[in-house]
């Protein structure tokens, strides 16, 4: 293997891992909502794109860094999530109709979010430029674009603090408990619906932050979310539903696979990778997949 190929592979690996950090931020909300709470929020990517537009608007208006915007505004996404779960619970979960109609509900929400964004902003691509957007560090032949590295660090901080929340706090442990046995949790004197409500709210708050990371990494248009649906579910399923570390691992697999595909076959094939991997993961890893 000559030197250019080695450096190409090394670069693909590094940019794949950086991408994986971002993918973890995008998927961790689904790992909570779908993996732990059993709420199939297929509108999650649409909320991520909504987060991107919020970051974009505030950035254009005040010139604040998108990540700062997202962190400051994450309570708004949190409350939006609580409200959506409330409706979902009252209309579907309580009546035991969550499977088919609940899916259609979230599909409708996805669609509405997308169309409202189109009505408000049109279908043009929007991008936020930050001070670090065009900076690239070079470490011995390997490129380290800050445009990817900053989201990587933010995402890692977010996922690891979620992991700490789950493992160390009472609320986090009751979230894990509601994933395992809501009835037993009820017997312990905790209201599982309330736990699920705030947990779902938390998952939407991560969508807001992931949205800010998204618009730093690439230009955004309203229907971009759709490309991420397969990705978030692929990461969650590969990572074994509802484990934060698993999500990180799943994101790493996908990020690297996609980066290699776009380096060696061209970027237009990259989207097929995540969906192909998802199909393969769904078909070949039946443990935990049946009976849902």
């Amino acid at each position, binding site marked *: 293997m000559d030197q250019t190929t080695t450096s190409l592979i090394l670069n693909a690996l590094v940019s794949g891992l950086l991408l994986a950090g971002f993918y973890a931020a995008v998927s961790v909300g689904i790992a909570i909502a779908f993996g732990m709470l059993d709420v*199939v929020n*297929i509108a999650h990517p649409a909320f991520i794109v909504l987060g991107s537009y919020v970051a974009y608007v505030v950035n254009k208006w005040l010139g604040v860094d998108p990540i700062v915007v997202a962190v400051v505004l994450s309570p708004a996404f949190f409350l939006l999530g609580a409200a959506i779960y409330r409706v979902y619970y009252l209309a579907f979960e309580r009546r035991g109709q969550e*499977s088919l109609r609940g899916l*259609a509900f979230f*599909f409708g929400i996805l669609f509405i979010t997308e*169309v*409202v964004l189109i009505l408000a902003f049109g279908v043009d691509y929007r991008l936020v430029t930050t001070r670090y957007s065009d900076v690239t560090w070079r470490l011995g032949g390997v490129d380290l674009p800050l445009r990817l590295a900053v989201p990587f660090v933010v995402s890692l901080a977010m996922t690891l603090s979620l992991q700490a929340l789950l493992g160390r706090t009472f609320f986090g442990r009751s979230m894990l408990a509601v994933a395992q046995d809501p009835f037993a949790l009820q017997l312990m004197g905790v209201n599982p619906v309330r736990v699920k409500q705030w947990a779902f709210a938390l998952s939407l708050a991560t969508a807001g932050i992931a949205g800010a990371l998204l618009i730093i990494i690439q230009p955004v248009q309203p229907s971009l979310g*759709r490309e991420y649906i397969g990705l978030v579910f692929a990461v969650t399923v590969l990572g074994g539903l509802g484990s934060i570390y698993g999500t990180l691992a799943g994101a790493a697999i996908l990020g690297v696979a996609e980066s290699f595909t776009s380096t060696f076959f061209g970027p237009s094939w990259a989207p097929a990778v995540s969906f192909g991997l998802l199909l393969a993961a*769904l078909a070949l890893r039946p443990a935990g997949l049946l009976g849902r």
Partner: protein
Amino acid sequence: MKAHWFTLIAFGVAAAVIALSTATIHNDYFYSASYTVLQFVVLATAWNILGGFTGYVNFGSASFFALGVYSSVALYTLFKAPVPVAMVAGTAVAGLVGLGMGYLTLRLRGVFFAIATLAFAQVLFTFIVNWDYVGGARGAYIILPRTAPLGFHDNIQYLFALMALIAAGAVAIARFIETSMLGRGLAAIRDDEMAAECAGVPTLRLKLISTTVSGALMGLAGSTFPYFISYVEPSGVFSLSYAVNSIAMPLIGGMHSWAGPVIGALLLGTLQQLVQVTISSEWNLLIVGALLVLFVTLAPNGIMGWAGRWRRRDGGSS
């Protein structure tokens, strides 16, 4: 009513509508709007065979529609295939892929199946974008000969007539499935697949029939589309609005009978045509999404559900 009588009536109604409108109306817009509405009748009916009767949610309606579209485009590029040939090919291709999707249900139930169909749509989209023979991302042109076949005044009337017949066929098939043993088996799968299997319902075979028929009908609806629109490109064909519409229409009409999707498609389809002309096409999509969410939260059994409740209450009081 016996199935063959119903089929006869369905095709009779279609033939009457075709004869009446071609004799009296010479406005091209009428035909293109009606074609679109009828196309949604087919898509909604096809979706409902799998979604409403069997209980498997397909988010990838657009991909089966696209299989029909691109079979036609490929055949047209190959030897300028006439419409009927393209229709047969589109139906066959989409039906075969539907059969494959049926085998997927062995492994994937419920939510996972729905996500897999969404993923499949995206994979297929990527392939079409990268496949230059059918135009790739640039799109492809399909031009019909200037003179319409079978003595029709022009091509749009010809395509409208074809779509009316397809819709009649799709509705007849849906009603046949619903009222036959097949439909009861599918309903058993929808309510509890495990229990159905234990009670001796051949679940796999029934699911395979359901996915194949549903896919084939969507492909059939797509196969005439390139001739209708004369320029197709992937992001238009794979538009999410096909998937949303084909779910929203049965949900709004009512999912447990053949009539639900027809009512939903006629209402929602006509409403969309009106909004598109009077306001804008984005608003028309917003209305579909809002209606879908409203109906699914507030009226889970759709318009047919209302009608049923009203009839029951009426019957109880007398």
